């Protein structure tokens, strides 16, 4: 009783918006725009499901390009961040060099810098570098919030790898670089997966940089495209909007479902410190 009732309420609260998204995106317009207080109105179910909204998305808007843009940008920025984060994490956790401590603190601080603090000067810089309205404006800026997180997470994993393992390899003639690449990094693969899936979802979800740096409709990412192209003035096309929200969420939900354990490890690792 004290378990199932609150649990059910939590699930209802947390998952209802998704149900609402699904039901809206397959519901014909005639049913959608019926005022909430009209009689015999059943908001929770439809007997006449339709693909009209999805068809509208792919035929009348650039939704397919937005999906491709988002995927490409998310994958590229994740890859860059992983390489940088793994290298930096290795250096900070296993090598002795001057200023290691203060550099680590510096990277941790950038981890806490929110995008909304810097987006205006950054927009100017992007324009000066002539990166505006290209995917590279995002591929190069997303790592600023992904690298610190990846570094932080990888440091934790690298610290757990025993020093002896690396020393054995070095006695057998491996160089430092080889020992890192072939001995230490493979042991930390679960950490790389966690950092990767977390970084992928973060860059898929990013909004304000994409909103400010991209201007032409065919360059946009899903969150920005849905926000700016499916609303005409004050008119909201709720069917296509919800269909777009649903389809824009599915890839990241699928990626997440394959790596739930890694995602949770990344999430909890990211706050453990």
């Amino acid at each position, binding site marked *: 009783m004290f378990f199932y009732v609150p649990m059910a309420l939590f699930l209802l609260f947390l998952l209802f918006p998704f149900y609402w998204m699904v039901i*809206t995106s397959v519901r014909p317009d005639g049913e959608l725009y019926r005022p909430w207080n009209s009689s015999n109105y059943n908001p929770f179910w439809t007997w006449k499901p339709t693909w009209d909204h999805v068809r509208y998305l792919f035929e009348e808007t650039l939704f397919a390009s937005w999906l491709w843009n988002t995927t490409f940008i998310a994958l590229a920025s994740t890859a860059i961040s992983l390489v940088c984060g793994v290298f930096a994490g290795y250096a900070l956790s296993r090598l002795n*060099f001057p200023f290691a401590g203060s550099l680590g603190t510096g990277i941790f601080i950038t981890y806490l810098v929110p995008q*909304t603090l810097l987006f205006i*000067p950054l927009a100017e810089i992007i324009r000066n570098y002539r990166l505006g309205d290209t995917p590279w404006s995002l591929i190069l800026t997303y790592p600023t919030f992904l690298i610190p997180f990846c570094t932080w997470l990888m440091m934790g994993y690298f610290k757990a790898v025993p020093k002896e393992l690396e020393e054995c390899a070095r006695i057998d*003639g491996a160089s*430092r670089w080889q020992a890192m690449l072939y001995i230490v990094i493979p042991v930390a693969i679960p950490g790389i997966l966690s950092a990767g899936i977390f970084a992928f979802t973060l860059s898929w979800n990013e909004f304000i940089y994409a909103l400010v740096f991209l201007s032409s409709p065919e360059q946009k990412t899903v969150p920005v495209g849905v926000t700016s192209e499916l609303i005409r003035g004050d008119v909201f096309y709720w069917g296509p909007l919800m269909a777009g929200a649903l389809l824009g969420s599915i890839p990241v939900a699928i990626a997440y479902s394959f790596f739930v354990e890694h995602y949770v490890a990344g999430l909890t690792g990211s706050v453990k410190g």
Partner: protein
Amino acid sequence: MAISAVSDTTLREAPPPRRRRLLEDERWLAFVLLVPTIVLLGMFIAYPFIRGILLSVTSSRVGMPGDFVGLANFHKIFNDGIFRTAVYNTFLYTGVTTVFKLALGLWLAMLLNRNFRGKAFTRAFILLPFIIPTVLSTFAWKWMFDPTFSVLNWLLYHLGLITGRINWLGDPDLAMISIIIVNIWRGVPFFAISLLAGLQTISPELSEAAAIDGAKPWQRFWHITWPLLLPVTMVVVLFSVIQTFADFQIVYVMTGGGPANATHLFATYAYQIGIGTGLLSEGAAISLAMFPVLFLVVIIQLLYIRRVEVR
């Protein structure tokens, strides 16, 4: 052993190239490994930060460099009624949502910390609000709060709680409440899953021993679980405070700062002024006005983490 001896000699026969020798030095290797990170963070965090400060003391607009004006922009925004409302809103938004997210998240974490059928499944589903792009899920909420077609109004009406329609996003106070609800909805999973990880490190034997000694459930929570969970709680709260304080997406989608600029936060107002109207330097000043608070939270976090590490 023989194999390693062979590889030893082969390595020694060819003298290692200069590049390889440099990488054998710990300091050089560290430098090489850190260069990409330092370049990217320098170019897109440190440099924009300095540019932001320089921008905020000029009178730049889009396409116009502008002159040095000192603190005129800051003087202007501190006398701006909308900015003051935004400051008030941001503190209110951060405070209220953090309390609710912590309370609900902790409750949910304690529920999840039991053994029940479908636990892994439930946990995976609970994280969905945090995974799904915030902008997209916020549209679902906006549609649920729609003045004419609101399913929430339908629900409340049929439960007999209201008689007329509620114009959720048209009234300043209700709009603020709606935004707060969406933020809580998005943040509870993060709190719950992080706190659950903390709870799982606490040995159940402690609670059991206290129970044998006659401690009531509430006493066990207050004297055992809560103090042991406090380090995790602190870090989660500080993270969440930074994110919430600098939030943009939920307000941008739900109200766009309206009705009549009543629900702006720092970030949405900075966007409206800096990008919307093109007053770059004023927008940069509004963004930078967040900095002192963020700085304070980061300092607390750094000190706290250091203290935990020392222990």
